[in-house]
């Protein structure tokens, strides 16, 4: 399994309020949430993002509230993977549960800029910056996590397993 896309790069402490502002939490429809994704930090994001694109950030991505709407909005916007130096713990858990691939890799976070073309190989954990010709080693995704992502989240994964 691989992700391929153009990078949107952000800094430290990207919080869930800027990923999806609470004024839109009167909806829980992922497609609707996606139309406001990253609105308060990057209002052009939703106009520019293409299916498969990748978000890269520095420390503590997803800090703040527990709203699962945050990874749901990112996933529904078409983002194929989020790479960060570190993630806030509730966001990390939520992203896995809904099947949004995320990787902690400080080196990649430092070596990738906005607009770079990046490929992520989930089997090997290798992150390749095709624009700069560099590569970084993140943690490979264990098999269960790849299946979970392929199923579209924890609940579907459990149901598939029980079927």
């Amino acid at each position, binding site marked *: 399994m691989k992700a391929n896309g153009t990078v949107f790069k952000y800094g430290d402490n990207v919080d869930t309020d800027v990923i999806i502002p609470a004024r839109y939490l009167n909806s829980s429809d992922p497609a609707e949430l996606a139309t406001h994704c990253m609105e308060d930090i990057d209002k052009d994001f939703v106009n520019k993002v293409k299916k498969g694109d990748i978000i890269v950030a520095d420390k503590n991505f997803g800090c*703040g509230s527990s709203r699962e709407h945050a990874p749901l909005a990112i996933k529904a916007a078409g983002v194929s993977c989020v790479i960060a130096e570190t993630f806030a713990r509730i966001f990390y858990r939520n992203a896995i549960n809904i099947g949004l691939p995320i990787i902690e890799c400080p080196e990649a976070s430092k070596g990738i800029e906005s607009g770079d073309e990046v490929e992520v190989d989930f089997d090997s954990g290798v992150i390749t910056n095709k624009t700069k010709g560099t590569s970084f080693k993140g943690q490979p995704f264990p098999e269960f996590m790849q299946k979970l992502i392929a199923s579209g*989240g924890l609940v579907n994964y459990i149901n598939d397993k029980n079927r």
Partner: protein
Amino acid sequence: MGMTMTQKILAAHAGLDYVEAGQLIEADLDLVLGNDITSPVAIHEMDKMTVDTVFNKDKVALVMDHFIPNKDIKSAEHCKCVREFACKHDITNYFDVGEMGIEHALLPEKGLTVAGDVVIGADSHTCTYGALGAFSTGVGSTDMAAGMATGKAWFKVPSAIKFNLTGKPSKWVSGKDVILHIIGMIGVDGARYKSMEFTGEGVANLSMDDRFTIANMAIEAGGKNGIFPVDEKAAAYMKEHSKREYKVYEADADAVYDEEYTIDLSQLKPTVAFPHLPENTKTIDEITEDVVIDQSVIGSCTNGRIDDLRIAAEILKGRKVKKGVRCIVIPATQAIYLQAMEEGLLKIFIEAGAVVSTPTCGPCLGGYMGILAEGERCISTTNRNFVGRMGHVKSEVYLASPAVAAASAVTGKISAPSELGL
């Protein structure tokens, strides 16, 4: 190697004698919580599961508090979804308009969380119940759904940071100043994935409401939970509010901590977090320029309890909110509202020119009841001052205690109570 207080609670709920940091465990849950924003997503997920109902109808709490009374049609649909679910599954602890309060003030007040519990909630401030000596932490909606269905959740056992509190806080210093001081010191990811264990003789000098405020904002340092030892004050609180048996866990003498800090409460000053992170703190005497405000909010799961309202009323009594400043006071629960009325606090607020609202999370997260326009500034007793948190992306939120928020409402700029001669 000994265990921390948190590790002992988790071990007991996983049926294990011993756990250590980093270990993955599955723990039995004493309570699973959701609100009107997070529960609809969880209900949708649970509908997809092959289960008929919740694991225990007494151990699920659904609190309508964020956008209620319904602020718009979409919010009304969300609440309707939760209401129907609560009715269908006969959920005992479903709290709607008239009974509700802000969840993290309401649950301890109703006696639903006690020492020794393991609680998950689809709200990041679920860490509040650590004030009572419980392990409680925020999760997302899918974890809430799995918790409602199975009564279990998996956890990575956290390591801990120990905060040894000494001394007694001075007159206008409260729990909010303690936790803002700590977040300023360690940063918004300083306790990422970790327990924040508060201990020391200074704990006895903090009221239960101070402790709720401190544990509430553990998440603002990235913490998995914040937790206090169970002393006489905590025991008295639980005896007054709960019929449930509680269990006291204490950290082993040889428990290992990643870091230890000693904080002399008597040295702390009123503290304010500047935009746009809770770690951007300044003590009130370090604020040298006038920071003119448009709004002051006194309330939320962090600071909407009776002690908070008493402090605000002590400052606002016989004074007026400055012309041009909106002061919004929000008692956190119906019981607190009633208590404030009986004590005459609401009269003081209204005579001062503040408004008093039904319990709601509303303005804290920029939902309704106090949204900021472009360029506006708010001093707020809430918990987050991120970009756009309370409204326009170019508005500003300054986090402070009820004492500072009330004094600032009077002067129209960020002020200590001492500026009013108090």
